[in-house]
């Protein structure tokens, strides 16, 4: 089976300061890879390099074996295949929930509006928000907004979904409703790359854990192994920091 996403020797700098150093990774169809690591280790930047939101200094990112070039002519097409959900939801404040979801399929993909609306409504039903379709983002709670943001990514039928700390801005009681949606997506076999600080969730959802520290992949392995018996001292220290 060919990998959906391949990252080779990715090197990223900000003003001469190395953020990511020789990162290599493959993600196979249906696989859920969870990236963990201390704040500022480069995990979010890594996700942003994958869909060209950040330029990379060296190395390459391949989607279905084709190089992603942030300044190339195909970047817009490639991005449609990579769904992304952000920490701060980033819904369009002046559009209704339905408009938020149908903007890209209709305007970017050129799909039929009625068809897009039908799919949006059924996806909203799935995350329990179909009654909110005509409201504006400000009328929704954080957890609801984030579920809408997930629907907004799903309607594009992406080959891979990127989740960038999607519960980091949420109140604790709203974290679960969002994570349950992500978990249900994992169960139906979606390919996902997830950055999170929720260790229990990471363990439950991941096929593979990737631990990044200082811009490098330090350790990689199955979740049960990583969380019970990490191989590296740095991973051990990181996991210890979650216990009181």
């Amino acid at each position, binding site marked *: 089976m060919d990998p959906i996403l391949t990252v080779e020797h990715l090197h990223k700098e900000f003003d001469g300061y190395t953020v990511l150093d020789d990162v290599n990774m493959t993600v196979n169809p249906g696989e859920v890879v969870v990236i963990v690591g201390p704040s500022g280790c480069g995990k979010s930047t890594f996700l942003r390099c994958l869909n060209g*939101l950040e330029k990379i200094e060296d190395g390459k990112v391949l989607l279905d074996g084709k190089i992603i070039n942030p300044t190339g002519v195909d970047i817009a097409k490639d991005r449609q295949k990579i769904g992304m959900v952000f920490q701060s939801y980033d819904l369009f404040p002046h559009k209704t929930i339905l408009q938020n979801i149908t903007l890209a399929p209709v305007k970017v993909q050129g799909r039929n509006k009625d068809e897009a609306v039908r799919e949006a409504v059924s996806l909203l039903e799935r995350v329990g928000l179909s009654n909110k379709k005509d409201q504006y983002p400000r009328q929704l709670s954080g957890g609801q907004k984030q579920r809408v943001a997930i629907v907004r990514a799903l309607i594009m039928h992406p080959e891979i979904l990127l989740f960038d700390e999607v519960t980091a801005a949420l109140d604790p009681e709203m974290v679960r409703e969002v994570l349950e949606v992500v978990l249900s997506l994992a169960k139906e076999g979606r390919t996902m790359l997830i950055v999170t600080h929720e260790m229990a969730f990471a363990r439950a959802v991941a096929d593979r854990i990737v631990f990044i520290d200082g811009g490098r992949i330090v350790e990689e392995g199955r979740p049960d192994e990583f969380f019970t018996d990490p191989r590296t001292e740095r991973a051990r220290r990181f996991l210890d920091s979650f216990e009181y």
Partner: protein
Amino acid sequence: MFDQKIIEMLLEGIRDTLYMTLVSALMGYAVGLPLGVVLNVTRSGGLKPNRIIYRILDIFCNIIRSIPFLILLILLIPFTRALVGQSYGSTATIVPLVVCAAPYIARMVESALNEVDAGVIEAARAMGASNMQIILKVLLVEAKTSLVTGATITTGVLLGYSAMSGTVGGGGLGDIAVRYGYYRWKTDIMLVTVALLIIIFQIIQNLGMKVASGIDHRKK
């Protein structure tokens, strides 16, 4: 209080003032809106940063905006005459008003667009939206409240400037105030024109703010 002739003149003044203000605002936006979009898009951190284009437009806007309107009015007389055929009257006044308003509007538009949350733009970009789609469907839509507020302020400024053009025969209420109130010492006529300007200003301002808050979905 006033005879028929004066009342007719005042009504004509109102008509000319509204004509100058609204037409110059519309034409100012025809130039200023795209200019503001280009400023926002080419600034560093914009959708398509371009230092050279940004600096040229930036300096161009600053130069025009730093010339006092009254001076601009006089400087542009040859240009106005070439364009309209005469340098006095309300239609002629529209020329310097548009020249003055366009860079002002460009700045208003630029700063309105700058306020759009970068995360929202990034989200649109991540969905594969082109720069044009982001400008039309995201930037201008999400900035609409600020844009309407800016348009209201601009129209108010143009109302004031159109009155100022009365000093050089610009027509409208300002012209009446200068000719009757200042040169002929008819204070009552001057006061009436001032009152009319205040009323028009209030109507523009209230209307603009009402529209702006009506279309604002960010808070309530």
